[in-house]
């Protein structure tokens, strides 16, 4: 089943639950299992939280648009914002050594996105802003 849909919400944390619901409905309609839906929901939640926190540097600074394309096997999510350009290389990888008291959790959201999705690609365009493209491959 080929499904395309999109959602635009204000860049506010209270819309994270709305975004999660949007992903859940799209995933169910496309026939993906609950594990896959949960993983994509989490990756998208972390991505949209980063947009508000880092790209917009606060709430109510702009919209977040999600586009979702399921072709029956793979699930492609694109997230657009018009905030500051996001450079993933500027985010340090988290140190998750379990026995250390000084575990570093900076970059944890980005870490989850890479763990949960098969492709994570950031790009920036002067006119259209940031675009994050993530792909989850179906089993």
């Amino acid at each position, binding site marked *: 089943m080929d499904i395309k849909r999109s959602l635009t919400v204000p860049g506010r*944390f*209270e819309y*994270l*639950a709305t975004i*999660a619901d949007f992903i859940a409905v799209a995933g169910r309609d496309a026939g993906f299992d609950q594990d896959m839906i*949960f993983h994509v*929901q*989490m990756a998208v*939640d*972390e991505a949209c*939280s980063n947009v*508000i*926190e880092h790209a917009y540097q606060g709430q109510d600074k702009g919209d977040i648009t999600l586009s979702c394309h399921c072709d029956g096997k793979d699930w492609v999510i694109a997230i657009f914002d018009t905030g500051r350009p996001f450079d993933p290389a500027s985010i340090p990888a*988290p140190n*998750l*050594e*379990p*026995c250390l*008291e000084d*575990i570093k*959790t900076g970059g*944890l*959201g980005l*870490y*989850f996105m890479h*763990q949960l999705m098969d492709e994570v690609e950031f790009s920036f365009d002067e006119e259209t802003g940031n675009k994050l493209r993530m792909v989850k491959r179906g089993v």
Partner: protein
Amino acid sequence: MDQGSALEGLRCFAPQGRLDALTVPRFEEGLRDYLEQGRAQLVIDFGDVTYISSSGLRALLTARRLAKSKGGDLKLCRLSPRVYEIFEMVGFTQVFGIYDSVEDAQTAFTSMVTPADEEAD
């Protein structure tokens, strides 16, 4: 969000629903307020938590450090399989003492030995 009920002298926090960037600040504030009052032993009941984001994990880690600095600890219980999976992805199942029930978590404080403590030593 239920910020806690006294159970045999130990505070038990029971957050509900999603712990995400919207709800974590209030959760974190509740943990900090409690721990800064000098009460360093705290059980967090995750039975009604459906999701925890990286901001929630960071809040737990910060609260754990504060509790440890006061000679106490956090103990977590009743994690759903989804929430447990998130903890596993970042190795937090080895950092926090995680128990099946509130009672088990409370009992663990009487011995003050957790799986993480044993491994760290």
